[in-house]
């Protein structure tokens, strides 16, 4: 039997090279199309689930600003600080909507007053907690005297997020969101589960700079449960294992200095990116228009016309609708590709039997069973698929650069490939047996009919 299988494969590859090569290439290309469809489907499903989970039945607006560097510089100047603070205070206390200024950023650790401050003085941390780690940028931020760690600055009510839980310690209190003195500032911090074996509740972490030039001390008050997550202001799912979480604090002391300038901690705190830009306004769908009107009224009261409101939910609905359209279209292509592959492989089996009728007739006269013929056809199919897999690997490594060509590799690629190949092999073998059974022995031996 082994010699027959070997002979069959040799005959297929050497005597029918053109058909073999075309089948291999056709299957490989068809699978690439099917895989891209699968990737699209997975992506669209994830986006849909994320949108349903994060938006629910509410309307989300995001605050942005009009202009480029010139506008940023102007809004960051002390001239605008009071307006920014007043706008922020108005937004926070509005009865019509919730104001959420939770965002991801880095936490810096350095000591400007100590030239000998070095990596030995850095707080305990793990490599995966470095800012930019997942993006491959961690090395870019690494230096001998400055440490960048991942951080999330959260608004009040963060504990109400659906998928956030503490494993130990306590949540931020209301007073934790208010800095009442510019001296010896201590901010509470919750740590992700990655810090659990290197820090403990009550630890103090010095020389922290949470987007401010002044150093603060962080006091560990608890740890988050593993895989706690939330959706950030770009609606990206953020798993908090590697993050430090600190309150997005307000200033509760007199920040105007004797010379009428502003205290530096106040100036840094009311940076537009910490308080306004990328913050979200969340309201019910019925109040959406009223919330937008109120926002623009607040801008008018504070003469901050550089800011603007983007309707996130409306934009997301349009995006999901286009994704759905694209997925359906890709699905049609994938179904066509699979059907075509089935038809072509069945044709190939029929073509093979037709070309080698006499040989099969002799096999059957010699006593070969249908089970053995089944194995023969499976071997034939597997030859095509093994060679296709090799071609797919070569194409993937040589052409899949994500810039011009993107094959959309996902976690299920190999599983799906295996399933398709198994099903096609079985289908081909059963079809071949069916065709052989239909032909009588005389027909097989008489090739001219």
């Amino acid at each position, binding site marked *: 039997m082994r010699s027959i299988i070997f002979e069959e494969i040799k005959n297929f590859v050497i005597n029918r090279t*053109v*058909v073999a090569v*075309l*089948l291999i*290439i*056709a299957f490989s*290309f*068809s699978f*690439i*199309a099917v895989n*891209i*469809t699968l*990737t*699209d489907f997975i992506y669209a499903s994830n986006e849909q689930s994320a949108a349903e989970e994060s938006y629910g039945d509410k309307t989300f607006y995001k605050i942005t600003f*009009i*202009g480029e560097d*010139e*506008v940023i*510089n102007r809004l960051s100047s002390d001239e605008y600080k009071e307006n920014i603070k007043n706008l922020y205070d108005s937004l926070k206390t509005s009865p019509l909507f919730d104001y959420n200024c939770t965002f991801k950023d880095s936490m810096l650790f350095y000591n400007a007053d100590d030239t000998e401050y070095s990596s030995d003085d850095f707080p305990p941390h793990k490599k995966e907690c470095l800012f930019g780690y997942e993006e491959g940028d961690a090395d870019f931020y690494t230096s001998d005297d400055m440490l960048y760690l991942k951080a999330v600055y959260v608004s009040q009510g963060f504990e109400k997020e659906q998928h956030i839980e503490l494993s130990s310690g306590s949540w931020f209190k209301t007073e934790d969101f208010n800095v009442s003195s510019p001296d010896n500032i201590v901010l509470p911090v919750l740590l992700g589960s990655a810090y659990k074996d290197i820090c403990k509740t009550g630890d103090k972490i010095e020389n922290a700079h949470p987007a401010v030039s002044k150093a603060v001390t962080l006091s560990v008050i608890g740890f988050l449960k593993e895989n706690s997550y939330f959706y950030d202001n770009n609606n990206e799912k953020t798993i908090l294992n590697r993050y430090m979480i600190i309150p997005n604090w307000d200033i509760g002391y007199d920040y105007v200095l004797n010379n009428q300038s502003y205290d530096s901690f106040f100036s840094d705190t009311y940076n537009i990116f910490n308080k306004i830009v990328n913050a979200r306004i969340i309201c019910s769908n019925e109040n959406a*228009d009223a919330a*937008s*009107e109120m926002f*623009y009224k607040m*801008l*008018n009261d504070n*003469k*901050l*016309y*550089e800011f*603007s*409101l*983007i309707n996130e939910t409306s934009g997301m609905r349009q995006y999901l*609708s*286009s994704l759905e*359209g*694209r997925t*359906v*279209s*890709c699905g049609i*292509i994938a179904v*066509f*590709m699979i059907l*075509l592959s089935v*038809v*072509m492989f069945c*044709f*190939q089996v*029929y*073509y093979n039997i*037709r*070309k080698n009728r006499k040989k099969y007739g002799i096999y059957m006269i010699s006593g070969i069973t249908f089970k053995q013929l089944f194995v023969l056809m499976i071997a034939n199919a597997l030859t095509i698929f093994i060679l296709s897999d090799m071609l797919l690997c070569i194409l993937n490594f040589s052409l899949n650069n*994500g*810039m*011009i*060509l*993107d*094959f*959309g590799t996902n976690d299920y690629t190999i599983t799906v490939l295996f399933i398709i190949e198994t099903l096609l092999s079985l289908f081909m073998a059963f079809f071949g047996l069916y065709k052989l059974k239909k032909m009588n022995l005389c027909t097989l031996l008489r*090739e*001219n009919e």
Partner: protein
Amino acid sequence: MKKISIEYLLYYLQIVFIGMFLMILLAYNLNLSAQNFLSREMFSENVKGINISNSGSDFENSDKLDLSLITSDNDFMLYKYISGDYDEIIRGIYGTADVFGFSNYISEGRFFNSDDYKNKTHTAVIGSNMLSKTIKENGKYYFGYSQELFEVIGIFKQTDNNLDNCVYLNLTYILEKDSFSGLYYADALNEDTVSLVLSAVQNSIPQNSEYYFVDYESINEYGLDSMGNTLYIFSVLAALIHLLLTTIFFITRSEYTISVEKLCGMTKKSIFIKYGCYSLILICVSFITIVLGVNLFTNFQNGFFPTEQLACGHFVILGLALLTIGFLITLLTVLLSQKVNISATLKGR
């Protein structure tokens, strides 16, 4: 009625799908649709830009750009880029006349006139979607920009185009308050006027400034992402290879018939003509199916298939591509037919 061979049905399906995939690739990657003034984001084909930066302090504004020094024999428009994305286009505007007929798009109020530019009024004209971003006071609308309120003197009618999301502010007033640095676009009815205007702008800017000329870059994204392009390219290639396989299997199944035909005196030319005719009929039927399919796609999957970008040119290219495919398939059929051994086939070897 003669039974249609399964191979012809396969050919038909494969050619239809190749055609559909090709149409999508062409629609997304080949821009042949005629662009009008609005679809070019309210610019003509002659628009050119100049990017000016002030090498002095960002907050000093002692040097101004005097628009009255910019003259030309023909009328022109000058714009300053303030903000530009799909949801919101904000530009400062100045013109010696309403060169491109903005007044024709006004539904309420009026467009800027020479008095507005001369008196440097605090005014704006907005698109229909921008009303929600204005402030209403004393029955008038105001658009806020840079700590100032600009009175809305005109609102464009809804056009389902970029105009709906645009705001034009009086550039002469903006240049009184803001730094002259930034990106400016000059537009006119002919290229020479645009060049003259840009030269005049270049000569008007202070000596310590830096500048360079730019072409306008559209904010409208056009094209498929790399994954989308890969999907359609490989689908077309896979379907083409299946076409070749279908031809090989077709000849194999028809070996006996072809041998008899050749024995009866059918030449290469007559085989070519016979199968060429069949190919042509298939191509025509497939083309009609594709056109109907595109219309069906428009009605039920609007948003993904860019039918608004389809032009006659795309259909012509598709027709030529399908005819080429038909020709090559016929050629292959003839070549494979030539390889059929008459005596071996008829003797059953």
